[in-house]
């Protein structure tokens, strides 16, 4: 039985998947994929601090705080790397558990009675997404998450298509980019801002672990199959969409976690590409 509820969840899942994999392609190519893991955990701190400031769970300021926390994570990591005292992987691995821990501690000290569930941030619950609806002038405009995700997808598509040339050139040849007047640093931070916003927009519905799965795995799967960035983007969109649809169907059939099922499905595609790529392209 396919109801409108199912359709709505599938559309949200597809939007989330495609939104994540667009910046994901460049994260994978640049070798900063684990930044998505760091950002998606660190945003908890931003949400908690903003919540303590405004005392409302549905305020859009919470999302602003979360995005800021993501950007601060990137900045802190950069500062540590620039100091040459630690390597990139250590810097990432130090900052995000700290941010996450401070978030958890703040919740435990000041917001114990509030429904600010840390499990939800980590794991997400796509099945509940359709119940939070956007009502404008008493007209039901569909699930709130649908609009958030649609907006995020629009922003990401615009970012990737408008700055495609710049993104590609700074990714593969930073020296050439600098010589021709594109600043690799500016593009890097722009990519990180977009990644933070994507993580913030999607974690609410699908949880932070699935943000990581959707950002990295479809892009990496596409990377195995093609040598061109254009095709890599196209293929990763295809894989992300298929993983969302198949993962959701499997989750419904077996009555298990939707986010987990979609994440597993991206893994299935990756293994498929790994095993079967000798004969392709």
């Amino acid at each position, binding site marked *: 039985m396919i109801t409108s509820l199912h359709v709505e969840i599938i559309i949200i899942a597809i939007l989330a998947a495609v939104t994540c994999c667009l910046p994901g392609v460049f994260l994978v190519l640049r070798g900063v994929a*684990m930044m998505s893991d760091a950002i998606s955990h660190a945003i908890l701190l931003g949400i908690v601090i903003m919540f303590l400031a405004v005392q409302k769970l549905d305020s859009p300021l919470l999302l602003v705080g979360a995005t800021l926390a993501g950007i601060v994570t990137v900045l802190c990591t950069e500062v540590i790397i620039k100091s040459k005292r630690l390597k990139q*992987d250590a810097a990432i691995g130090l900052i995000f558990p700290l941010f996450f821990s401070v978030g958890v501690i703040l919740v435990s000290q000041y917001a114990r009675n509030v429904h600010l569930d840390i499990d939800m941030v980590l794991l997400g619950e796509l099945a509940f997404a359709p119940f939070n609806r956007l009502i404008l002038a008493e007209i039901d405009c569909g699930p709130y998450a649908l609009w958030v995700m649609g907006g995020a997808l629009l922003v990401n598509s615009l970012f990737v298509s408008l700055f495609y040339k710049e993104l590609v050139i700074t990714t593969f040849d930073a020296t050439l980019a600098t010589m021709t007047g594109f600043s690799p640093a500016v593009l890097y931070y722009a990519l990180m801002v977009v990644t933070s916003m994507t993580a913030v927009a999607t974690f609410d519905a699908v949880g932070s672990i699935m943000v990581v799965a959707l950002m990295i795995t479809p892009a990496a799967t596409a990377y195995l199959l093609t040598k061109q960035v254009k095709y890599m983007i196209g293929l990763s969109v295809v894989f992300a969409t298929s993983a969302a649809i198949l993962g959701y169907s499997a989750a419904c059939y077996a009555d298990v976690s939707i986010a987990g099922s979609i994440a597993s499905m991206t*893994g299935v595609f990756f293994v498929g590409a790994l095993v079967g790529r000798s004969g392709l392209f």
Partner: protein
Amino acid sequence: MNYTLLLVLQGALLLGITSGALGTFALLRQQSLLGDAISHAALPGIVIMFLLTHSKDPWLLLCGGALAGVVGVVSMNYIVAHTTLKKDAILGIILSVFFGFGLVLMTVAQKIPVASQAILNKFLFGNVATLLKEDIYVVACISLLICAILTLFWKECAVYVFDPMFTQSIGFNVKIIEIILTMLLVLAIVIGLQTVGVVLMSTMLIAPAAAARQWVTKLLHMVVLAGIFGGCAASVGVYASSVIDHLPTGPAIVVAASIIVFFSLMCAPKRNAA
């Protein structure tokens, strides 16, 4: 100081020392995020063990977790060997896909009537306060085992960390050293999952080593100092959470360890290269 607190302190101290010392090798080999990936990858193993045995014994479940962690590492190495993907992308794939699969299994486990969700949720955030006397024995045994193996293969590991090529050329079997170091890492993570949980385990490995690296330049000194830092952070975290109401232990340990790191980053004498 009461009995429970003493017990918990012992457990955390052992974990802090062992993971601190072992983290040194991970940090120097630039595998800081490997611990994060392994601890996430352990989840499906823990749940499968639960589904098979319906046992509530955390150590039995953690055996499953260790196995899954090993499977994760083996898959990682396979992908490294057979593709040109960057290391951190591979870590991210293993971490998220294994953890996602673990979530799927967890929802299966929750349908079993005997399932106490608590025991599985425990591994997400860890719960040092539930450690029993028997648990401390197991933690102590694993810690001793790790230290013994590290002492036994000290020379090999030390050479390997700094120059794998050289190690191979003078006739050591690099693969075996690699396997030993990874197995030790998995063992340390297994104790850590009991204590600080999946998300915060990476700090236990990286932070003490990162702090120690700022002060000393010799491997032996670094391992010892990292062990001391790890032990201190764990004890301070446990003590703070026993004094302050509702302060969760895992995050308290992480904050304590991070303070040590940032103090070291700012105050230690300058070095020329990282």
